[in-house]
């Protein structure tokens, strides 16, 4: 039912007088097979929320569930395995290992795990993303858009429980951005992938099924089946 859940999650950085409350009593559910966008101004806690959901950041209070697994109680090794096998990542920049080819980057999580990927599935991904001819090139030889697509291929290659995307289109021109987002949308629609995306761009958020708005570490509103205008209105409303 739910791919990812946060239950009463609080995250405080620092202590005493210099303590900063990044997240305050957050409870959220992310349904399987849905594309969710998280939006909010700087300092709203959206990056912290994603890092916590992905198990990269520990929480001060509360629980996070990936699938049925409560990740707070996992050892570092188990957590690492979870990231390797059940989560996909796409970052704004620096997604790829520069000394490996595109193909090797796509296979990387599987190589680390010692698994082999389904060749058919990989081929399909390469074609859909349009990067088949670039697989033997290294990241420095690829354009920004190509690199993000390779990252996306890597994220999808293992058919993870959830894909976390942190401002994936932040560094792209509008054409490449649209291509990438369209592909993410297709992954959800055609392949049933669950995607959680942090973004500040309303056009990007418009691709999602649900948009959650965060302010000062707390979710303040939610939009379903949004379009760009509604999102912009919501943002304007929140600013008052």
């Amino acid at each position, binding site marked *: 039912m739910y791919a990812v859940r946060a239950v009463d999650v609080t995250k405080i950085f620092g202590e005493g007088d210099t303590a900063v409350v990044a997240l305050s009593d957050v409870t959220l559910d992310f349904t399987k097979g849905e594309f969710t966008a998280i939006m909010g101004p700087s300092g709203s806690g959206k990056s912290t929320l994603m890092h916590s959901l992905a198990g990269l950041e520990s929480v001060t209070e509360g629980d996070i569930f990936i699938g049925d697994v409560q990740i707070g109680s996992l050892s570092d090794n188990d957590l690492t*395995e979870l*990231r390797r096998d059940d989560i996909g990542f796409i970052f704004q920049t620096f997604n790829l290992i520069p*000394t490996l080819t595109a193909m090797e980057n796509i296979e990387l999580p599987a*190589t*680390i795990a010692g698994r082999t990927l389904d060749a058919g599935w990989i081929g399909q991904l390469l074609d859909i993303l349009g990067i088949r001819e670039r697989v033997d090139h290294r990241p420095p030889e690829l354009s920004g858009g190509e690199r993000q697509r390779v990252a996306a291929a890597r994220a999808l290659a293992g058919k993870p429980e959830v894909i976390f995307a942190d401002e994936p289109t932040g560094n792209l021109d509008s054409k490449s951005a649209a291509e990438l987002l369209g592909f993410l949308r297709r992954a959800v629609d055609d392949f049933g992938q669950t995607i959680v995306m942090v973004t500040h761009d309303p056009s990007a958020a418009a691709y999602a099924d649900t948009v959650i708005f965060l302010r000062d570490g707390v979710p303040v509103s939610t939009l379903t089946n949004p379009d760009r205008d509604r999102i912009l209105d919501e943002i304007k409303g929140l600013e008052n």
Partner: protein
Amino acid sequence: MVKIAFRNLWEHKLRSALLAAAVVAGVSFVVASFVFTDSLGAGFDDAFSEALASYDIAVGPNLEEDETQFGPPSSEIPSFDAGVASIVAAVDGVATSSPSVATSAFIDFGEEDTGFGGPPTIAFSWTEGPSSWKLVEGRSPVASSEVVIFVGTATDHEISLGDTVRIAFDGPVEDFTVVGTMSLGDTTDLFGATFIAFEYQTAETLFDLARQITSVEVNIKEGFDVDAVVEQVNLVLPEEAIATSTQTAVEEQAADLKQGLSFFNTFLLAFAGIALVVGLFVVYNAFRVVVAQRSKELALLRILGTKRLQLIQGVLVEAAFVGIVASFVGILAGMGLALGIRRILELLGNSLPDAGLVLAPRTILVGFVVGILATLISAVLPAVRTARISPMAALRDMPSGRKTSLPGKLIAVSTLAVSIGLIVFGAVQASDSKSAFTGETGPLQVVGLGGFLLFIGLYLAARFLARPVIGLLGFGAKKMTATLARENARRSPRRTATTAASLMIGLGLVVMVAILSASVQDQILAATEDSVAADVFLQPAGSDFFGKLPTGVLDIVKDLDGVETATGVNLKPATLPGDTNGFVLGIHPEGMHSFLKFEVTQGSLDDMVGDSIAVQQIEVEAQGFQLGDVIAITIDGDEYSFTLAVVFRLLGDTPDDQSYYLNEARLLEIDPNVGINTVAVVLDPEVDPEDGKATINEALVDYPTVRITTLADLVEQIKTLLGSLVAMIGGLLFMSVVIALIGIVLTLYLAVIERTREIGLLRAIGMSQKQVRRTIRFEAVLIALFGAVLGIFLGVFLGWGLVRSIIGEGGSMTIPWLWLLAGFFGAGLAGVLAAIIPSYQASNLDVLEAIAYE
């Protein structure tokens, strides 16, 4: 992980090559020392097995444990009755039994005497029939004036058939005609030793052995077992003789030699160890920087699911790759180095048996193990640090700040304090009677331990010293390039410190050795000049320490024009109090002032008669004697009780083992054959020592076996000996300095990569390529000078402590300032050289690419 490791190395070939180079040096040293000693050993084996191959059993003198057949401590060659040969012949299973005689001799080649020591000259009786010696040219000796000489000797001294050679045994020199040359099996050169053979009866007469022989060569009949016959023979032999199968003899000789070689091996390995340690520093530093530079990438790997252990393994695998390559190259380089060492030694006049280069499987294994282990050990700490990289490091842009840990500072300061304290303590503890020269190694050990800790302490403290010291070194830098360079060097004090520390090790050791040798040399020279009374010394030439001068020499010299006095001194090996092996000297009390400069502190020289013995003050203090005490000394197996009647102090305060003096009459009673070992000649005051030497030389023209040395000659010999020792050690340490320089190159190379963006920015706003290069160059010079400062401090301080603990309180340290200055400026120059590659790399960066570098 393996793939990434390999890719990383391949992508950065220069960096990997430099890393490998740092280890190659150490590995090649290790390999070279094994190859060299193995080859030498194989050469010995060949020579010995050939020498003894031609007969089955050797009957020789039954020697004491520390006696050898042809050398000290006894000046005579042990022999036994000639009748032994016939006794042996009668044993069941013996086919032939051939007696032979041998002794050491002296040949006058008409060349300058090379001084004390050198290869021996062995004379023996020629054996007709099967023998290990084969005629090469000419014929065997028949007449009493004929001699056959070793091919190696003939070649070295350009002697051909028919030539006359002047040979002396115990008396004046005689002329002999060379009728043939011989080889030992196939060996034509044996470390420059000289062998000469005479007809049997002639040999007996010449060697003055009076119906004694020195060996019997035995062959057994077909079908008999060698060991069985050996047993039988031993049963009939007198006590002074013993039989061994040549097989066993070869093995024993080989074993003895192997032992000697293993000492040399250990000596070389010690220096190899130093080179490896320096290499370790370099590789450790490099990996640390590389891991830090790659932290973002490693963090990404963590996000994607790489476990900590896998990251650690990745770094270790990368190190292992470098190690394997380094080992491989190191083994090859090591063989070349061994060849080089051999060539150098041969150039210096040593002849070595040639058995090619022996690369034993063990050596290859050691090479790989050492190379791989060294690299792995250096990479361990950086590898483990990767475990601390949090996945979040890939997402944030924060540079990892290093807090100066208080425990780190504490450990560094305390180690430094303890080490300095130990050195000072040890040095102060040492006094004239308590130093390594007098056999007390206590203070030396303390200083040694302190020295070891000082290295560690300085290394630990270096990172805290880097900023102030470099600030000082670069003080007053007004130009922008110089200022930038200075601040860059101070920016990462830890990295700078480790790089400089590697130079500190090599340079510090070199400075220490230089100080030590200069001080010891000056000390010895001063003591010698202050203690020696004679102007000219006469001693027997050749390698026998206890040799005797030919009879008659003293009388000839005494009456010469220009000679004021000539005193004979006898030398006899003995076991001294404290169970040490040393010797007793015999001299006429009246002549003692011609020999030494001394003052009597207790008793009187007039009392030095009979069993009254005179002992040097330093020894008296060390042994705790009192005037009138009975001192037990063992000579030739018998224990004698002497009474301490005279205590004297050498004016030069030389602590050495010439401490016990008897009246010569008494020593002659104990051993009538002791002979005169030294004649001390005091010249008339207006005679120049060189003229005096010439006069004596002329008078002794028939006695070429006598070596005539003036005080000045002695001084020269000491200087030469010490000089060559220092040169060799310096050469061995130089390797470590080279490795440290590779370290500087590597550090700068990595720094440039790290600062790419910065350099791009500087270039964009107008810094010229030349200025960029100058900045890097200056930074290299500062780092090198920092290392030099540390090294010089280390060398001087440790040198001081060592001088005091070795020489004693009276020892003053001589600082060869020239060496120190050379070291300092040499380091600076080295910095300039080291900067070449990185500075061009920096200045050639494409500006736009550099700015955009992530």
